[in-house]
Structure formats: C-alpha cells, structure tokens
C-alpha cells in the first residue's frame, strides 16, 4: 500500500484560522485558530551546562520542554488559565512569520488532531498569492525533512477557491477571486488556472479590520462589554450576525422600524467578576462588512471601494483575458464574511 491509495491530507493555514482534513470529505475535520501557546520557562534553561539537572527538573515537572505547547482553542484556554504560556501567531498577513511556531503547529495538526502518519499521505498546503518563493522552499524543506512526506503540493488558495466552483457543468478555471482573509485581502485574477501575478491587488482591509470596526462601533455606542472581552465579542458578532446590504439608507430604516427583529442580543459572562452581561448588536451587523464597499467609514488612508479595486485589477490584466474575467467573479469563503457578490455586480 502506498500513499496514492490513501486520501491526501489538506492543511490550509490562514492568518486567523487553520482548516485541515482529508481529501474526499465535504468539509474540513478541524477548524482551529492559528495560534501556538509555548511554555518558554524550560526552553531557555537548556543552554545551561547542567543538562542532567535540567532533564530531572523537566521530568519532575511532568513536561518535556520541546513538547510543552498547545495549538488552537487549547492554546487560548491555556494562556488564559496560566501565565507560563506565551501565545504566538505563526502567520501574519497571510505570510509565515515564525517558522519555529509554524513547524510546531504542523506537528500538532498532524499527530494530535489528524493523527495520521505523515509518511503515509500526500500533503496539500496553501499559500497566499504573494508568497515569496523562499518561503515556499522553506515549507517544502520542513515537510520533506522533518515529516518525511512522500509528496507535497503547495497551491495558491485563490486558485483552489476557483477549483471549488469547478463542476462538470461549468468547467472554468478563469475568474477574479476576492480572497478576504483575516489578515489580508487580495483581488486575484486567475486565467485558466494560472494566477496573473502582475495584476494582483491587495486591499489593506481584512477580516480583522471588520472586527476592529465593529469593536469601535460598539464601544462608541457605550455597550456594556468588558474591555478585555470586547474584541472576542466583536469577532463573534461578525461571524454570527453580519451581512451585507445593497442600500445602507434602506437598511438603517429597516432597523429603525423593527428593532426587535433586527437587533440581536449578545450574552456573556465577565471574565473577572463572573457577572453576566448582555449587549445589543445593531447597525454594526451591516456596517461591519460595509467597510469593504465604503472604506472611508473606517480608515482615512484607503478609500477605494472593493468594486473599483476589482475593476482596476481587471483593467490591468492582459487584454485577451479581460472579457472572461468580467464575466465571472468568485467569492472565496476563507472568512465567513458574506461578501455578496450581487452587490459588486450591481455597482458596475
């Protein structure tokens, strides 16, 4: 039995969340925050000459320095409950920032979550369209040298988004992918499965900014949310209640007419005192995603709305691909911001 008879392992590392699973299933097995909690207290001692004493100290503490770390939700829980663990986010703005943390993250993904033997499976990893070749090389080095994978493919996630829309009735690998992640947003033109690298446009607004904007709105309205929880609450509000609208004025009117129907409630418990609290989630439900279409409501240095960026992107693509690119546009579902693309279409 060789690796071809087993399903390939797919790991999609994003700045916010990592999605992993096996090829052939309809959805990933695990979706985890891309975060590692490392206990540094023993690591630094390993330089000391008395390695025997160090070993004993580790043994009596019940840990192994290089294995004493957690990823994902466990990491967040650990860092909250004890202060010996430091959180590190291995991926920033779609690029791997900390390779040590990244290697550990992969190690846990493979051995603790998917529980597979990396020697038995082909691997499919993803990268953002502007990843440097060096970083791809490094990824390959880790995968082949540490994990001994039999085969590896690193795909551009925008192309994979197009491949997800590839059906027997619609065999096209051409389109503009708006890849709105947590740390970076790209508009990527793809022609016949190839990324047109020179025309990629990046937008300095991403999922995190939507969260920050919602946080700001809620704070300004004076919602009763404890300071240390406000980012988390804003993130949950974004993921659970946000939607895009075609006309802000109409949407404001709708909310004002029937507040009971449109304003959502959030209930939580204050982490310090344990007292329950509740707050309203109102206009930010549609104002959050609106930062993509009217960026001036959020930032003063970037004011080009998303449709204009897409238009510019297609205009800069080679002339023979433009007609095809104007015809189809795919949303990438990397983040659960419902970027409704009728909207973009309407504004042309």
């Amino acid at each position, binding site marked *: *039995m060789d690796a071809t008879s*087993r*399903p390939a392992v797919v790991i999609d590392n994003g700045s916010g969340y990592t999605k992993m*699973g*096996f090829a*052939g*299933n*309809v959805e990933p*097995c*695990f979706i985890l925050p891309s975060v590692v909690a490392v206990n540094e207290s023993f690591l630094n001692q390993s330089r000391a000459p008395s390695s025997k004493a160090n070993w*004993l100290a580790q*043994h*009596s503490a019940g840990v*192994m320095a*290089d*294995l004493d770390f957690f990823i994902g939700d466990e990491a967040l829980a650990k860092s909250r409950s004890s202060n010996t663990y430091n959180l590190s986010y291995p991926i920033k703005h779609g690029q791997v920032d900390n*390779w*040590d943390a990244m*290697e*550990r993250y992969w*190690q*846990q993904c493979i*051995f*603790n*979550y*998917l*529980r*597979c*033997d*990396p*020697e*038995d*499976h082909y691997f499919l990893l993803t990268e953002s369209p502007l990843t440097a070749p060096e970083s791809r090389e490094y990824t390959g080095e*880790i995968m082949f*040298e*540490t*994990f*001994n994978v039999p085969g590896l493919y690193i795909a551009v996630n925008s192309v994979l988004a197009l491949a997800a829309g590839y059906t027997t009735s619609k065999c096209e690998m051409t389109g503009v992918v708006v890849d709105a992640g947590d740390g970076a947003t790209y508009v990527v033109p793809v022609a016949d499965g190839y990324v047109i690298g020179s025309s990629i446009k990046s937008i300095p607004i991403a999922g995190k900014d939507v969260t920050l904007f919602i946080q700001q709105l809620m704070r300004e309205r004076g919602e009763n949310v404890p300071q240390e929880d406000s980012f988390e609450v804003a993130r949950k509000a974004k993921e659970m209640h946000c939607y895009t609208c075609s006309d802000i004025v109409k949407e404001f009117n709708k909310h004002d007419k029937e507040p009971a129907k449109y304003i959502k409630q959030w209930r939580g418990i204050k982490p310090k005192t344990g007292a329950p609290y509740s707050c309203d989630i109102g206009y930010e439900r549609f104002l959050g995603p609106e930062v993509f279409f009217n960026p001036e409501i959020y930032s003063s240095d970037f004011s080009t709305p998303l449709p204009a960026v897409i238009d510019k992107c297609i205009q800069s693509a080679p002339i023979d691909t433009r007609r095809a690119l104007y015809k189809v546009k795919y949303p990438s579902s990397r983040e659960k911001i419902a970027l409704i693309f009728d909207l973009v279409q309407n504004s042309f």
Partner: protein
Amino acid sequence: MILLQSHSRFLLQTLLNRVQNLEKAVELDYHWVEFDDVRYHILVSMKNPNALLLSVSLPIPPPEAVFMGGLPFGAIEAIKAAYGVAVQILDPPRDGFNLTLKLNLGKLPPDEEHRYALLVKIASVREVVLGAPLRVVLKHLSSRTVIPGIDGLLAIVHRSKESFFLDPQPDKVTVVFPMRFKDSIDIAFATSFLQEFVEARRTAGLNNAPSCLWSPTPPLELKEAPAEALSANAGFVSFVIFPRHVEGKKLDRTVWNLSTFHAYVSYHVKCSEGFMHTRMRRRVESMIQALDRAKPGVEGRKKSPNSRSFKRLSLKEARANSIS
C-alpha cells in the same frame, strides 16, 4: 503532548456533535485514515438520523498474526463488553472494511457523564479492536494464569504487515517490538532514542515501570518467530510486564501504550527532528548576526559621512573616498 491519546479526536468530535443535535437530521459521510493504516468511515443518512454506521479497517495482518473473520481474536467479545446495547456489530462489514458497527444514538445513557464516557470509548474503537488480543493476555496475567491452548510466542498485528510478539508466562509477559523505519535519518534517531529510553528507565523515579531492553539483534524470546518478521533496522525493544502493571485501571493504559508503541516512537522521532531544526535555525541566525557584525565594509560605509564632517580630507583621500 507526550503520549498519544487513545481516542480519535475527530471521531469523538463528530459523535458529540451528532448527539447534541440529534433532532436535526443531517447526512454525514466522512472517511479518514489514522496512523498505522487504520481507516474509519462514518455514515449517517437522512432517513434514519439515530443510526450511525461506523466502519473500521485494520492494517493488513502478517501471516503469523492470528485473525478470525477479519478481526484479531477476542475482538468481538471486547466490543460487546465495552459497548453493551448501544452498539451492534453488522455482519458482513461494509465493503473494504474489517468491522462495521451500528450505533443507536437513541439508546445512549441519558446521564451526561456516562454518555460522554461511552462516546470516548467508542472513539477509542481501535484500542478495543486492535488491543483485544493483548488485553486477553494481560487479563490472564493479572490473575496469574496462561490462556489455555496458547503456548509459546503470540504475534499481534500493529502496523500494516508487521506484528509485535508476546511471550506469555503465568507471572510475566514479555513484549518484543521489532522496530522498522523507512528513512535513514529516522533509523539513526530511533536507535538513539530507544537507547536513551532504556537509559531513562534506570533513573530512580521510574523503579515501578516495566523493565525495558533494547538490542540490535533479536532477543532469545523470538527464536521461534518466522525469519521475515525479524528484519528490523532499528533494533528490538522488549518490555517485561508484571501483574502489578495491569491491575485494575492500569490495564487500559498499558494495552494502549503497548499496542501503539511504534507510533509513539515514530512521533517522538519526528518531534526530535523538529526540535533539531529549531536549534539549527537559531544557530544559523546567531551565526549570521556574528557575520554581520564582523563585516568590515558595513561599518566603514556607515562611518564615512560622519568622518567627512569632522575631518577635512586631503585631495588624494577625497578622491579615494569618492571611488570607493
């Protein structure tokens, strides 16, 4: 994580998810593969949302291992003992699998704690099935008897076409693992890891652990074993298990740790490689820093604008500067 957990994380997550949303009918069709070539398949249909079909396929047994009807001996009894009424064994199993279980989610214990314990047990189905023969032997050990009808060596499959060996005796059981690795670096790592492992057993804190030996050649217990099972490139590890290691609750843990010993070693080999890489990366970084500091050119260039403002240059020096 130092030890591998006995339950499959994804299986447990799926089961919990399903049990919590029982009234919502969904269609599930997942398949995935775990280490040592254990495959799982889960099927839930819209028609009957309470029934969940869980199929498991085991690694291909080598000729010396005892398999009955596609399962290791004692597996059927172990499944019945572990799961009770909530689980039904379907015969024949799904095509391409060794075992298909039909879980009736309506029949789970109503009380939260028991239900969770049962789901964890179901998620550790590979421990129950693959560890069944080992469990039978160790059960007999705890009552200081030998299974009637079995004398001499017993082979138990743990990886595809590979097995480990048991030498059961009334007062002790010797477990021998031939260790095989594919990659030459892995072999080197595993050999030194196992030697360290044996060394660590001798420290004072671990007096009660099973005694453990590593040797590059097959130990005496294996003299009856077939020759092709004795080609190990990372030596042989043997553990001697005494009745005190399998008392009461310790039995489950011992069974799990022994039946996945190879996966455990290979996990730690990979971790050590990762750790080495981290150290190497750090070393390279510090060396690059040292090199940068030692570069004469960088410092000279940095200083040149300053020196110009302080020192009036002669014509000759000025020309030399402008060239450089």
